[in-house]
């Protein structure tokens, strides 16, 4: 039709340009700067554009000599990865159970959506507020301690409830289980219920159905949720800071500390290391599923 040929239809690349521009300007170029500056020198006042591996060398200083004893950076990463694994395992179990309940035990779609929405609403509230909301419960004079004292189980308040590794893990689970529930629920909702009936008719037990039918089919959701949780916990410095009483070291906290001291090159070097380790974990997860295919 010649009439419409003359009408101007913008080409696809032009439509994608503003979007792509934001990521080029505020994501790709900044990442390149991080890598570049991680190889720069610095003094107390400024960063000096000359190539050096000083930031990396200083980050790993003494790591080799002191083996088998771990140096600070390795200890910090070990503890970060440990947090990551614990939080990942807990959010996975809770998220999977909740999603399973919603997808297979709640019958009406409206009810499913309502209950899923109930799990989502707290996500709309600031993370810091959700963190400090544990203070009146877990603090020295908090609800938990006073309840335990009144019941007579303990004589003195338990100190490790707040500003401890325990409270950090608790806050992570509280904040980010949402990231597990929604993708897993999404995957499960697509599973054809007749498959479960078929498994039942073929004589599979509940666990066998779960292990051989549900889990393999829910894998994309599990992986996407895991990627979110792993990335957030690996890079976090806010939850660890607020809930750990600024006492617990983490990979993200190292970067923040360096930045507060205006030491940009070491901060950048640590960012590169953090990025590399996070990407390693994600690549390992990604081997199980092709994310692009699942979207």
């Amino acid at each position, binding site marked *: 039709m010649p009439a419409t040929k003359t009408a101007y239809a913008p080409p696809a690349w032009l*439509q994608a340009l503003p979007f792509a521009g934001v990521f080029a300007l505020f994501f790709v170029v900044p990442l390149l700067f991080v890598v570049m500056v991680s190889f720069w020198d610095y003094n107390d006042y400024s960063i000096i554009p000359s190539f050096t591996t000083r930031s990396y060398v200083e980050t790993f200083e003494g790591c080799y000599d002191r083996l088998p004893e771990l140096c600070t950076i390795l200890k910090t990463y070990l503890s970060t990865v440990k947090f990551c694994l614990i939080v990942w395992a807990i959010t996975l179990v809770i998220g999977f159970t909740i999603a399973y309940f919603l997808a297979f035990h709640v019958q009406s779609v409206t009810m499913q959506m309502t209950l899923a929405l109930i799990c989502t609403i707290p996500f709309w509230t600031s993370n810091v507020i959700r963190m400090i909301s544990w203070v009146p419960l877990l603090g020295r004079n908090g609800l938990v301690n006073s309840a335990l004292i009144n019941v007579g189980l303990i004589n003195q308040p338990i100190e490790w409830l707040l500003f401890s590794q325990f409270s950090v893990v608790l806050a992570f689970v509280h904040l980010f289980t949402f990231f597990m529930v929604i993708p897993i629920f999404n995957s499960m909702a697509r599973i054809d219920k007749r498959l479960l009936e078929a498994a039942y008719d073929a004589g599979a037990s509940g666990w066998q159905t779960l292990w051989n039918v549900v889990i393999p089919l829910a894998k994309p959701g599990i992986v996407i949720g895991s990627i979110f949780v792993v990335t957030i916990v690996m*890079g976090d410095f806010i939850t660890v800071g607020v809930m750990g009483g600024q006492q617990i070291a983490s990979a993200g906290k190292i970067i923040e500390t360096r930045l507060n001291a205006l030491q940009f090159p070491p901060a950048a070097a640590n960012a590169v290391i953090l990025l590399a380790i996070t990407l390693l974990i994600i690549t390992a997860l990604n081997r199980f599923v092709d994310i692009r295919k699942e979207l």
Partner: protein
Amino acid sequence: MREGRPASFYWLAAFFGLFVLFLYGPMIAIFVLSFQGPTGGMTFPMNGVSLHWFGKLWSGGGIVDIKSAFWRSLQLGLTVMLITMVFSVLAGLAFRKRFKGQNLLFYVTIASLIVPSIVTSLGIALQFRLFDEAVKAYAPGFIAESYTTAMGIFTSGLGAHLTWALPFGLLIMFAIFNRFDGRLEEAARDQGATPWQTFAHVILPVILPSLIGVGLFGFTLSWDEIARSSQAIGEKNTLPLELQALTSTVTTPEIYALGTVTTGVSFLVIGLALAAILSLRARQARRGSDAGKGML
């Protein structure tokens, strides 16, 4: 089909109930505690009931300059919301066709979600720092003398928030256009509509309710953002950053009152968005096609 509910249903339902209690319990605690009396503390039991701490927040007597942080966050959130809606729709339309670098753009977008926020934040901070130094060193004297920094809420801060909000926007657009019936456009084209007319009169009205959802996402992601803002925002803080700084210094229920207020704003925005979505849906149902509903 098996009859009745299996025992596992009740176990799982109980588990779900506990989970919801776990999610909401602590938050409800601080909402209640924010209505403490003037002599009340950070924990239960309540020491009287009052609006004292909200009043203190409003008068600015206690915590410094929360009001301007509040407005800054609100303005930034609304800007992020608008840009996310426009850019995501454009990109969503582009991704329905083929263009060079399509896969690259997709993977960069996903990477932006995966790269730890502090790394992105640091990168943007470095970028603006280097830019500032370049301007001071090489710009003509009259600029360089008065120049301080290009960093700010609506430059580096906005960029940082967009790298967080836009990926979600694009993913939602994928979901929207997956469900979009392409025959509607073909019909419009066959009637001789220009591409712009097709977009304005066919595509946009159909996707508008979901598009409001995209904007809602953009707003809340920006409104509560800390990690990306932490280094990239410049000298003036957003509300969540102020709040984070206050957690270690403020020991009165005023901080709970602040929490209640910001949560209230989140819920207000969500409520408005949902109302808009519902009214648009109703309008679509009213004014939509009557095909197949009988004669004439």
